[in-house]
């Protein structure tokens, strides 16, 4: 199983949307995809088509001592989603304390999941700094750091790397720019800044901002069948292709692209 943690230092850069879209596209290609919501906001299941925020999830399971992954849901696109679950303040504090005490908790839990070796695990996380992100980084084979083409992301650029070097220095880190509006000169300039700063660590093709995404979410449809020729579908497919021939190519038993 190839495990990707989707992280960012700035908020609102589209981590959850990116996670949901990638998982859906993977499922579309008949590659088993598990989307894991490791963000207390508990939004991923909604983005993947659930009508309301899921009550059950990995936190309630943890608190009640159930097996990890028991409350996973499957949507009509065959995407498996493990929601975070409803959480109150007190239980969240307990959970965070547990995570701080045991940095490899998530990694161990994931190892228990019986999943085909060619499958993908996509972990959505809250923004940095957070014990959740550190857990996901430790568990991941690849850390996908999402950047928005704005000044916040530029200012917070070192944060992800610092965290990663502290908790999981072996993981591969790739930056990807999400939500680019190429008709705005400012954003193009920022993209150029990211390029010159990050060089090879930046995925060369940014993911564009596109109405197709919110439209697909609002209609509970998947992007590929709603607007297959949209720019964002093109970008995401490009990103997936790159993952499949690059970092994830060493997986055995992967379903054919």
């Amino acid at each position: 199983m190839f495990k990707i943690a989707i992280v960012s230092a700035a908020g609102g850069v589209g981590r959850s949307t990116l996670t949901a879209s990638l998982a859906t596209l993977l499922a579309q290609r008949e590659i088993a995809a598990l989307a894991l919501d490791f963000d207390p906001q508990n939004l991923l299941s909604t983005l993947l088509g659930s009508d309301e925020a899921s009550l059950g999830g990995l936190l309630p399971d943890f608190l009640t001592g159930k097996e990890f992954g028991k409350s996973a849901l499957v949507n009509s696109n065959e995407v498996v989603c493990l929601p975070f679950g409803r959480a109150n303040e007190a239980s969240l504090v307990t959970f965070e304390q547990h995570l701080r005490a045991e940095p490899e908790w998530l990694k161990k839990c994931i190892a228990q999941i019986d999943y085909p070796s060619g499958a993908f695990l996509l972990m959505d996380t809250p923004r940095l700094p957070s014990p959740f992100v550190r857990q996901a980084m430790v568990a991941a084979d690849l850390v996908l750091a999402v950047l928005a083409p704005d000044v916040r992301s530029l200012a917070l650029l070192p944060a992800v790397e610092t965290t990663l070097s502290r908790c999981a220095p072996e993981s591969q880190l790739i930056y990807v720019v999400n939500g680019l509006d190429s008709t705005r000169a400012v954003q193009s300039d920022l993209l150029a800044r990211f390029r010159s700063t990050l060089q090879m660590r930046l995925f060369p093709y940014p993911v564009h901002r596109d109405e197709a995404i919110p439209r697909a979410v609002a209609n509970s449809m998947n992007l590929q069948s709603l607007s297959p020729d949209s720019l964002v579908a093109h970008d995401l497919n490009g990103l997936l292709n790159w993952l499949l021939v690059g970092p994830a190519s060493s997986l055995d038993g992967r379903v054919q692209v």
Partner: protein
Amino acid sequence: MRPIVLWVARHLGVFRPDQPSLWLKRLFWLPNADELTELTHPQVDTRSDPLDWLAEKLGVIDKRNVWQWLLYLFIIPPGNAARTETSVWRTFLTLTVNTIGLLFLSVEWMVLAGVRALSWLWQQLLSFLPAVDHEAVGHRLEGWLETSSFKKPWLLWVLVLFSTFFFWLIVTTPFTWFGQFLFLIILWGVALFVRRIPGNLPALILIALSVLASCRYGWWRLTQTIPLDSGWETFLAIGLLLAEIYTWLVLLLGYIQNAWPLKRQTLSLPLDTSLWPSVDVFIPTYNEPLKVLEPTVLAAKGIDWPSDKLNIYILDDGRRDEFRRFAKEAGVGYIIRPDNAHAKAGNLNHALKLTHGEYVAIFDCDHLPTNSFLRSTMGWFFKDKRCAMLQTPHHFFSPDTFERNLGTFRRVPNEGALFYGLIQDGNDFWNATFFCGSCAVIRRGPLEEVGGVAVETVTEDAHTALKLHRLGYTTAYINIPLAAGLATESLSSHIGQRIRWARGMAQIFRIDNPFLGKGLSFFQRICYSNAMLHFFYGIPRLIFLTAPLTYLYFEVHIISAAAAMLALYVLPHMLQANLANAHIQGTHRHSFWAEVYESVLAWYIILPTAVAIFNPKAGKFNVTAKGGLIEHSFFDWTISKPYIVLAALNIVGLTIGLGRFFFWNTFEMGTVLLNLAWTAYNLLILGAAIGVATEARQVRVSHRVTSNLPVALHFMDGSTKMCRTEDYSMTGLGLLLDREFALPVQERVWVSLWYGEVEFAFPARVIASHGNKLGVQFDNLSIEQEANLVQCTFARADAWRNWSDGQDVDRPLQSFKEIAIFGFKGYRSLWRNLSKGLARQRQSVRGWLGRQMI
């Protein structure tokens, strides 16, 4: 009831409901504008004769005139129906025109059928022969030559001696007709076998065979066929002989020139960019509009080179404020001078004095360099320290006159393809690459050593290269299109440009003859001489186009030999030359096209070359006009006059010849037949030349380049769509979508194009939307956006890489068929324009007479 009928009538556009014919017509035709205006004033008329309506529609004025009915019903298409009174004479004329057109069509059909039958027979014949693995033969041949026993110098000399002896023997031994026939068959058979072997070695074998056949023919011609009895017969005979000697010489020199094309590849540069030299880019301009210059400057600015080592200068001999402002805005240098002495050469020399780059890259103002231009070329200057100049091909993305008027764009190699595809590569092997005035890099030192760009002749480029070679510098050629531009837009300007080249070459031949003077190697002399001699084809070409007429008109025998014998001698010469050239030139020139190109120009370059030979200082420099448009198709009567006269002479000759064949000269049918065939061939070539003079319409201001690039469309509501370009130009894009998609015209969109990984978005408006095709026009691009656009389109490193992939390979028979069709089409177009012109003339004469009477 009546209101309903009236309502239906109005909606159908029947403005006279009492006229049954109109009802019928409206049901099947759309109303035209005049009738629609009439619709607003409905009037009730009692005229209702369907015959009247038909007469009016067809344009028949006098209904009782049977001739007119015949004429308009069957001959004049309804669109052309001139509503004038016509006479029997005019009907007769039109009938003749149409009959002749029909005759052409049927002859065309018959010829095609004949060709098809012959090719079928040939295929049948081939299927009987055993299959040969030509590739293996090629390898064996090469391996055999590589063996050490061949490497001994004495063996080589013995071989040379032997082959010279046998060559001489074959060339000079007289054969009987049967011997000569066997010679033809054997040589041809060997050539047909050899030409299928890949590699350059078979080309040399074919060249050897061709030289053998041509020399044998030449020897025979010189020793056996010159009539020496009467004065004027001898005079004509010597004329033809000289023309033949000229072509023989050019053929041989061409073989040497193109024996082994070098096909130089690009060399990489040192990794340390601080070692890279500084380059000045000169863009000379004189009278071209700013919109032509603009993309060139922007493309030059995008050339991939350290920015502190790249300086771009506009050299404006027109001294225009508009250009100065643009240069400032674009951030490039702007150089003017007080006078225009020595035109482009003087302009470049003036700029040389004011700039200091180690190298100079020169681009005509309509040649857009790709961004990899310097990276691909400069490597050779590092490798070869004596290299003074590197030339790249002149590539044109718009069709030239021939391509546009004959419709052969990107299908048949154009006139320049041979020079840039083969001859320059051939020259390069002998270190004789010419400078061609644009798309080249020159080292400043050597250039200043020869006193800058040569100013003594009108082809300053070739002369400069000659001077560099005389000083022992080397030049290089890379046959990769790294810049592209516009071709000349009309036949007259095309001819003007060629006249200048011809004159310049003749001038160099006269004042700085490459065969005389110091410093050149033998082969450099040959390459230069051939390039210059090539432009003297005017008179020989005219002689060939008229030679058979001397017999057909006056029964003068300018070749004193039996027809059959002449055919047996001349056929191997022509066949072998054709086969060898088709093999060498292959993808760069199709067989028989050279004849067309030369025939179009022949008449026009005679005088300039002659003047230049006798008085090299006479004449002025003329600039080649580019970037224009031809609003209406028209027939260029002025330019085509010489070919029309020649064609008329040949047609009369053909007619007389038929008379000779059947009635007057039945005792020498062979001679008549030979001359008739020659005349028919000449007529085809002349027909194609006339076809070129039919100027096709050229409406686009900025040329569209067909391409398949990814594009993203950004709509105003935030959604997007990926698609691909069908074509691009400086003003807009033609887009091809995956699915049908309708967009309102004038809708604002953004279009993104990519330059490598970098995306550039440009504001645009939809100007056409049809099915899955979309046309967008850029909307007020800033100069920076325009520069980005150029980088994403014209200046991409691979923009012109696979340009000629769509070209057919040369198949001589196919090529001949095509020329023949163009020949027929040329005459058809001539007839059409002639009859049109006559009708117009008659009308104007009538109008003039009418005025007189009043």
